[in-house]
């Protein structure tokens, strides 16, 4: 099965430093699941810096029911949320579904994340299922016999606290030194390269979001904001609901890539900081006191942004069936958003099946509401914020239209 990799999304960059050892022929498969969706550039940067050829870093396909049926069935060990359950299909595809075999299956246990909220919140941990998912899934491939070994594949599952860059070289060195014949210094350099690649990618995406938002501001047009976990960008998990809304002409922004520029943050949150209500634009203690979980924190922060930013007139919230992390956040998120009259629509209990019919009906409803109420929402929210707006440098509206391309839109 060919593995389609969006260049924008899972694109690879070559490292500048020459690799000390020849690892160019090693093929590394990475299941494209859970928080790989927000950290993939780190892994690409890290591996290429170690001399692995970019074309030899293979991500599994987007999640699909067929993938699970063909490669994962019978290996499930327990029933849980679909974003974790479907990993068996990704492992299976990398083990049995590739024409050219991989040598290593790399499935990191990501304990914490390099979130933009780090330092402003109590912690940036991942969901317990995200961090432990690989241990659960691997059991399904080892319970009867070692399926990895049978297929000549080394299973590598480093435990990694990506939210604490200082300890990552130790963690990756310890876990991968024998598998990749690493020495410590090159691991350190590769980790740095990984973070650089991730940062550059995030910057690019945020810049793009800023352009979208600027376009909205200058044309007084609404956009729709997605509050979800990174892996809801996977068409098999999020069912491309946002794409159907975008098809009606509303740009889509994802919370993960909202622009964080000082001018914009100060415009949205400055008054509250000066009033002593919050300490920084990224302080969420006013709405969520136990801010331990990275993606949860980002969703709560996103709700605050959505409540304030005038051109975000509508929020769509995605949640997977049986998601324990999202459950306590349903009401507060909705209340935060709706406090300013911003529209809020929740797509909960998403699982393997895509209920195309009901999604279509809901999308039509959303579109109707967005069209009808956006002008008033924009006007009202704009009146709460100070002048000047950093997105409107000139009083003249810019007439250029911006239609995000489909593959880029997926990243948003």
């Amino acid at each position: 099965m060919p593995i389609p990799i969006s260049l924008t999304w899972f694109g690879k960059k070559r490292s500048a430093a020459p690799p000390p050892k020849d690892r160019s022929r090693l093929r590394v498969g990475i299941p494209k699941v859970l928080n790989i969706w927000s950290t993939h550039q780190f892994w690409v940067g890290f591996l290429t810096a170690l001399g692995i050829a970019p074309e030899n870093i293979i991500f599994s396909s987007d999640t699909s029911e067929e993938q699970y049926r063909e490669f994962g069935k019978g290996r499930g060990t327990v029933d849980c949320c679909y974003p974790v359950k479907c990993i068996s299909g990704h492992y299976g595809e990398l083990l049995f579904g590739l024409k050219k075999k991989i040598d290593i299956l790399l499935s990191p246990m990501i304990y914490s994340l390099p979130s933009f909220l780090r330092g402003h919140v109590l912690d940036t941990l991942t969901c317990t299922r995200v961090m432990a998912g690989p241990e659960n899934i691997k059991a399904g491939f080892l319970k009867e016999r070692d399926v990895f070994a049978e297929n000549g594949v080394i299973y590598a599952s480093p435990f990694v606290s990506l939210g604490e860059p200082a300890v990552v070289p130790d963690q990756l060195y310890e876990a991968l030194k024998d598998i990749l014949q690493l020495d410590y210094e090159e691991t350190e350099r590769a980790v740095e390269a990984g973070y650089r690649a991730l940062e550059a990618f995030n910057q690019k995406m945020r810049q793009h979001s800023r352009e979208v938002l600027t376009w909205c501001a200058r044309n007084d047009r609404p956009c729709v904001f997605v509050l979800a976990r990174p892996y809801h960008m996977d068409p098999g998990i999020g069912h491309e609901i946002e794409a159907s809304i975008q098809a009606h002409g509303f740009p889509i922004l994802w919370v993960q890539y909202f622009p964080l520029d000082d001018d914009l943050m100060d415009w949205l949150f400055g008054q509250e900081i000066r009033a002593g209500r919050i300490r920084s634009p990224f302080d969420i203690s006013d709405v969520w006191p136990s801010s331990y979980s990275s993606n949860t924190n980002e969703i709560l922060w996103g709700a605050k942004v959505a409540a304030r930013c005038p051109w975000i007139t509508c929020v769509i919230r995605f949640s997977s069936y049986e998601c324990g992390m999202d459950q306590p956040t349903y009401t507060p998120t909705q209340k935060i958003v709706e406090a300013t009259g911003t529209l809020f629509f929740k797509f909960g209990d998403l699982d393997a099946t895509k209920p195309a019919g009901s999604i279509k009906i809901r999308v039509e409803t959303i579109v109707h509401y967005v069209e009808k109420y956006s002008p008033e929402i924009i006007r009202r929210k704009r009146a709460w914020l100070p002048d000047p707006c950093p997105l409107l440098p000139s009083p003249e509206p810019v007439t250029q239209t911006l239609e995000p391309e489909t593959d880029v839109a997926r990243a948003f």
Partner: protein
Amino acid sequence: MQAVAHYTAYKPRPFTREERQHVTILFGGLTWKHERLIQATMHNLGYNAQPLPNIRRSDLDAGKELIDVGACCPTIFTTGNLVNFLKSEVARRGRDEVVNKYVFLTAGACGPCRFGQYHESYTMALDGLGLRDFRLFLLAQNQLDQGAAAGGGLEINLALSLGLVWAILCADVLTDMEYLTRPYEVVPGQTEEVLRESIEELYEVFRNRPIQGREGNKWKILGWHYLTDYFTDALERVRKKWEAIEVDRLRVKPKVKITGEFWLQTHEGEGNYNMKRWLEQEGAEVIPPPVAVWLDYLLHSPILKLEKRRRHERRARLKIAIIRALEHIFHRTYNRFRQALGGLPYELPDQEELKRLADPYYHYELRGGEGHMLVGKALYAYLHKKAHMICELSPYSCMPNTMSIGAMAQVQGKYPDMLYAPIEVKGDAEIHALSRCQMILTEAKKRAQQEFEQALAETGLTVEAIRAVEARHPELTRSTYRIPHYGYAGTAANYVVHIARKWRRALA
């Protein structure tokens, strides 16, 4: 520019020092034994404190009604428990009195799973009840000295924290006594009676703890708790009460080790289908999970983390040394309490060993629920022949548990004869859960019987011969008589070997 009313999270109004006299601190979440001794500690420090009523099935309905769908069952049960209590108090005393008379204190703030987010469900429930001005405080479970909580009404200092930990350890060792004795008691109900008396005696002991929480020197408080015979003397007195209980250890019973999510495994009541009682009624001997293992885990895990961060963390060595010292104090205290009860309560498993056992299946740094311990404890019980069967209580919709149970698939693949019963507790699927457990229990019973017969064959003893020895040495039938572990899981089999080895002369 206009003003806007943004949403803000619940924040309790302060609980002041002056209010201490007439405000009652509500708490819950452990067994009635633990809660009674915790109450004594609070009384000792001048607080009014009261445990919530034991969890009932109706708490599940009350919780479900008021919080968002999809919560794990411990969240629903504990929220519903508070809800039902407040509802009945409001009916009795009126809203304003309830809001001013009570505050609720709960453990929280522990990180990635829903446990760190319980507060949200509680506040949602308060909203639903129209009691948003009711005060709810979170107690971080990994800090012994947190200073004064909002308003100074409650001070989480060393005198309180050590009192609470010591109370929990005492309740743990007595719980072991209870479960070691009840299945074998000759006079039905006697264990229960003695247990209640013992807890009441310890209540007085904790209530009169001569520390009084005065602004004392921290080292002095710690030193006193570490060195004093105050608690061990009390436990020795308690032990005498247990001597009165006659037991029949020749009843062949499968031993069932309880593991699982923290709240669910600790709980005794309808919150987990009364699983421990049910197992006993079905003819099993239950090994209850002590809260101490959880505390030990909380204490130990930073060591492993710090060791990995030696180069990056300031004063890592010193911090490790301090934690090791605390660990020593903790273990020594637990062992002293065990010894005071004749060495009967189980020893704490070595955290390093749990980690080593779980290692190929579940990484020890993965957090949430029981972490790697769920796998480690099951292997510990199996490999050391401490139990015939492992009953793993897993809450419906729990996040970490689903992961570790998944990892257990590999363990079972490697040890196919391990009797492992993962039971999902939903609150309303009791029959299904119990019948699943029963199937595995039937196998465990067979194993216990085989073991017993093997022990008789190996020693050449008969039941009659043992009875004859017991008749001449009634001390053998006291609940306080200790039977060492001879490599059999079952009590009866070990008893046979013990009689053969230690009472050879009496047999002659």
